[in-house]
């Protein structure tokens, strides 16, 4: 895997994409086009969220339709303390991850008792509850949203008010999230998650309490997404409850499926495709979402495994 001589299309695309993201500040500064940096930063934050969703969806077979809730929890974990002038980034991120873990634990406890379409509906319902909860809290802006005046501060270690620093902070976060998920999926724990996706009944019959393992996986995914939410709150400097609406959970699902559920890097490619298409199509037509619909149908019908699956087939043909 780490030996380039063995790389195929898939590995090359992963390495080159991450390298391109890493080098983008150098080039965009030359081209004096900071908006591209912003676009990629947002893309990378959403990619972390998609990677975390893929952990439960692609690897674990748990189709959550409420993942955007964690983005909101993470963003408010930055915004609400900042509102009280608590700007310590370590603390804010700890709250983002901790609150996401607690929310994932209790909602997972209930939703993981259900299967299939019931699981989809119940995860969506829990997320909508968070959405309406934040709409109703006037103190933090209600449905107008919350302005986040200052970005997280990291005790002088680095300053993410600086655009380039924030960009690299996000880049490192994405790479770390990918590495983390890769390690987890190859570990004993990951094997249980994958096995339970394939045949839960048999996994129980050989002695695994699959419910406990799935719940743990669900909590880990929530924590990673909460972290992405904290990044997004810092990035946008403004957070509206609308960003946790179920349509945004649906977009995350779309990114994962488009990129290739169950592959490590697929969700990043799916997010990239989504964000870039959204950027360009929304400039051309207000019906850009309809084009996404068609695209999704084409992917499901003709490219099972999404973009990553396509790259995998390219690799094998050579």
């Amino acid at each position: 895997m780490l030996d380039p001589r063995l790389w195929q299309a898939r590995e090359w695309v992963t390495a080159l994409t991450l390298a391109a993201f890493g080098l983008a500040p150098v080039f965009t500064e030359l081209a004096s086009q900071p908006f591209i940096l912003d676009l990629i930063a947002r893309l990378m934050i959403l990619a972390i969220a998609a990677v975390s969703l893929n952990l439960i969806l692609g690897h674990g077979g748990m189709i959550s339709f409420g993942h955007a809730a964690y983005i909101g929890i993470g963003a408010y974990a930055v915004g609400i303390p900042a509102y009280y002038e608590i700007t310590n980034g370590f603390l804010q991120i700890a709250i983002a991850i901790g609150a996401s873990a607690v929310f994932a634990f209790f909602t997972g406890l209930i939703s993981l008792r259900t299967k299939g379409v019931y699981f989809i509906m119940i995860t969506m319902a829990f997320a909508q509850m968070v959405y309406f909860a934040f709409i109703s809290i006037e103190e933090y802006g209600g449905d107008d949203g919350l302005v986040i005046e200052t970005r997280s501060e990291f005790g002088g270690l680095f300053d993410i008010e600086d655009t380039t620093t924030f960009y690299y902070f996000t880049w490192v976060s994405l790479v770390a999230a990918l590495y983390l998920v890769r390690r987890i999926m190859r570990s004993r724990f990951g094997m249980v998650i994958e096995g339970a996706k394939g045949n839960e009944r048999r996994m129980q019959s050989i002695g695994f309490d699959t419910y406990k393992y799935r719940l743990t996986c669900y909590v880990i995914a929530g924590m990673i997404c909460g972290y992405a939410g904290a990044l997004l709150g810092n990035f946008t400097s403004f957070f509206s409850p609308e960003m946790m609406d179920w349509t945004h959970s649906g977009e995350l699902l779309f990114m994962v499926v488009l990129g290739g559920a169950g592959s490590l890097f697929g969700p990043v490619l799916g997010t990239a495709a989504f964000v870039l298409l959204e950027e360009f199509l929304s400039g051309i037509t207000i019906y850009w979402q309809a084009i996404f619909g068609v695209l999704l149908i084409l992917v499901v019908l003709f490219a099972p495994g999404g973009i990553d699956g396509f790259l995998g087939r390219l690799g094998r043909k050579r």
Partner: protein
Amino acid sequence: MTAAFLQISNLYKSFGGVAATDHVDLEVLEHEVHAVIGPNGAGKTTLISQLAGELEPDDGQVAFLGRDITRLPPHARAQLGLARSFQITSLMLDMTVRDNVALAIQAHDGHSFRFWRDARRDTALTDRAMQALARVGLEGRADTIAQQMSHGEHRQLEIALALATDPKLLLLDEPMAGMGSEEAARMVEILRDLKGSKTMLLIEHDMDAVFALADRITVLVYGKVIATGKPDEIRADESVRRAYLGDEAG
């Protein structure tokens, strides 16, 4: 006499008013191979499913090693040392043959809340997985995705999974069904090797295999036990002949 290894008392299960397990009493002794035979639809699989914990009985008890396990979920029973094989193959089809067996071993090697080390490079798992595969003759297929194997190989892997958990009690639901004659002969050999050291509840239609392996046989018809005894006694039993064996045991 010591308490039975597995004690089934007054077990009852009905589907829509039709009794599939009709007040069954049965005990399996340690180290014996206890065969359960009976015509199609007699309730053999239903019985095993209640022993393994997948189906909840309407009434009655199951005790294993002197402990009441009637309400225990399947994974907890597996942890006590009970393993079943399925009549209809049940595998992790998307994973490799080695991964399938390694998971069965992993399930009985402490908890799996281990998030960092690469499980596929964990020789504690992979070495034992290869041994378990060698035992059923699948070592050459270790890297094959389970989906891509033949039906007969699926049956072998099915048994390998149950054996790999190193159980105290094996519940085998027609292990030879769907195997070619060569594979079936091999399976009889494998089970014969285990005989004496492992306790088995064996469901099988292949009467040659049953009479070759079983220490005792229970005959189930319409959910009811109509006879239990040594192979010779069962062979000689008039009611069994009439209900099931026919000329086969001749």
